[in-house]
């Protein structure tokens, strides 16, 4: 286990409240709709746990052997299975979040894990590291195998990080750009 971030949300707006109520079957179709929707309106809030998924060899992105786009380029094939560690982190976070919400006066709680709709952070697969046998890019973003290839995006993360990753991505982009500038004379050696 590495950890996770708990993110509290502001109250849901009207459409989101109703959609959530329908999904949870707290709001029915038909004559009971209005009373049920008004019961939830301005009374829903939520938390999200952003769990740090560890690098695992069984999770891969490869080229699909059959599926191609209209230009004949193979589609990516994503194989992903939640690890026992990630499942335990999610379960742990649900217990903590439920405690927080109940302490705040929640009369009803629902948990969805993992979320079906919403933000999954696509990170990893071209991890950064000093060892070419266990990583794709070096410590300043250049591919070990192709000297004039730099990868500057979320794929160089080693884990999924237990946070929203944009700030770190921006910092990595600035860092790698600065490294390229400083190493111009020997950049492709």
């Amino acid at each position, binding site marked *: 286990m590495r950890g996770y971030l708990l993110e509290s949300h502001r109250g849901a707006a*009207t*459409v989101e409240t*109703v*959609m959530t109520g*329908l*999904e949870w079957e707290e709001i029915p*179709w*038909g*004559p009971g*709709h*209005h*009373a049920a929707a*008004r019961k939830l*309106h301005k009374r829903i809030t939520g938390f999200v746990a952003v769990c740090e998924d560890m690098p695992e060899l069984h999770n891969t992105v490869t080229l699909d052997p059959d599926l191609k786009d209209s230009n004949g380029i193979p589609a990516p094939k994503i194989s992903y299975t939640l690890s026992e560690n990630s499942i335990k982190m999610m379960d742990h976070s649900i217990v903590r979040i439920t405690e927080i919400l109940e302490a705040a006066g929640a009369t009803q709680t629902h948990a969805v894990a993992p979320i079906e709709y919403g933000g999954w952070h696509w990170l990893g697969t071209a991890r950064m590291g000093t060892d070419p046998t266990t990583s794709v890019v070096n410590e300043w973003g250049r591919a070990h195998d192709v000297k004039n290839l730099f990868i500057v995006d979320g794929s160089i993360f080693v884990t999924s990080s237990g946070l929203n990753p944009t700030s770190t991505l921006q910092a990595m982009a600035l860092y790698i750009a600065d490294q390229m500038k400083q190493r111009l004379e020997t950049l492709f050696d």
Partner: protein
Amino acid sequence: MPDTPLDQDEQEILSQLAAAIIPASDTYAVPGADDAQIVRDMLGSAYAGLAADLASFAAFGVEKAETFRHEHPMTAGRLERLVVECYYRDDRVLTSLGLEARPPFPKGFEVDQGDWSLLDPVRAMVPIYRAVD
């Protein structure tokens, strides 16, 4: 009717579906989602594949709307979102919920102030973060 990917029969099915999800209410003095103005909004907001989703609903019929909802949750979810998004931006509906019938931008909305003293213990805490050099 505006330009729409739906023919007349499909528009009728959309109205039946909308009423099945959100009927009119005398208690709350609101129209149903099959109100002509709201249906026009739905037609203008139609998504690709709406006609196929409506055909799926029509195979069950209004009488078995609940069965359709439970046997085809993904399709029902797409239809629900279209109906709910258009219904809950109708001025009459927003007003009935005690909301101002306007978008938040550019004027914003007044936010009810909560009990800010709840943060006092947090403010009184010693720093739990590492200072940046």
